């Protein structure tokens, strides 16, 4: 069940394990950049940079948008910790709901017991 989260964490850590990719994140933290600009800045081929950008995008650490022939990279589509915090809020909402549901079910159980013993009388 935790596979999806685990995959995303693995993807994030794998993405961050490479110094070039960490450099790309740092660079995008200052301003958006095209893949061409990133390739020049890091002295790489376009193909090499595309691969790094793909890994970062897969991990949800950056998003890219193609306008005309230029693909622009932006930091953080949605950060993992934000999603985790949201899911924890969602869980707490359901936990509160289920606590109230428990009370309703307890009452139904009591009622059923009383009705059952009445029938036996």
């Amino acid at each position: 069940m935790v596979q999806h989260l685990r995959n995303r964490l693995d993807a994030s850590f794998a993405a961050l394990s490479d110094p070039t990719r960490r450099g790309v994140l740092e660079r995008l933290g200052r301003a958006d950049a095209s893949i061409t600009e990133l390739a020049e800045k890091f002295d790489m081929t376009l193909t090499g940079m595309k691969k790094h950008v793909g890994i970062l995008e897969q991990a949800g650490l950056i998003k890219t948008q193609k306008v005309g022939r230029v693909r622009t990279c932006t930091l953080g589509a949605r950060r993992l910790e934000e999603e985790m915090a949201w899911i924890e809020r969602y869980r707490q909402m359901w936990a509160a709901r289920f606590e109230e549901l428990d009370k309703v079910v307890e009452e139904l159980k009591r009622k059923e017991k009383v009705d059952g013993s009445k029938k036996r009388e």
Partner: protein
Amino acid sequence: MEARRESEPTPVHNRTAAERTSERELVVTRTVNGPARLVFDAWTKAELFERWWVPKSFPIKLVSCELDVRVGGKYRLAFAHEGGTVEFFGHYLEVTRPSRLVWTNDEGDAGNVTTVTFEERGGKTLVVVHDLYPSKEALDAAIAEGSTGGMPEQLEQLDQLLGTLAGA
């Protein structure tokens, strides 16, 4: 720590789990101490449903609740929110008493389908709430907007804590 009053039975705290199980799915699981037929009643009878769906701690109040629980039947929930009313509505796709309930959420464009299963084990019922979104983007958007339910102050503190941990 609070001292437990002796006259009260020890409360049984069943754990509620919530996970994003895929790009399009959210799953909540919880065991309820009661047989499936009673738990199913609590999900399908309006007079019972409205007692627990919106706990007192929520920032919104349920003002009306209509559940026409049969295949194709509609439901409509109205909430008081910031001086106005917000409505949630949809229809039931499957109704199998007491084990399965499927409904649509039609208030938005990219609505999720909710499947709830009730599995009885030794007098207790495992409830699984499964929400399937039409696309990854739809679930991402729901998360970004917090549309699946906001929560009060103590959770903001949790957010702050998570933020601190993430920043460390």
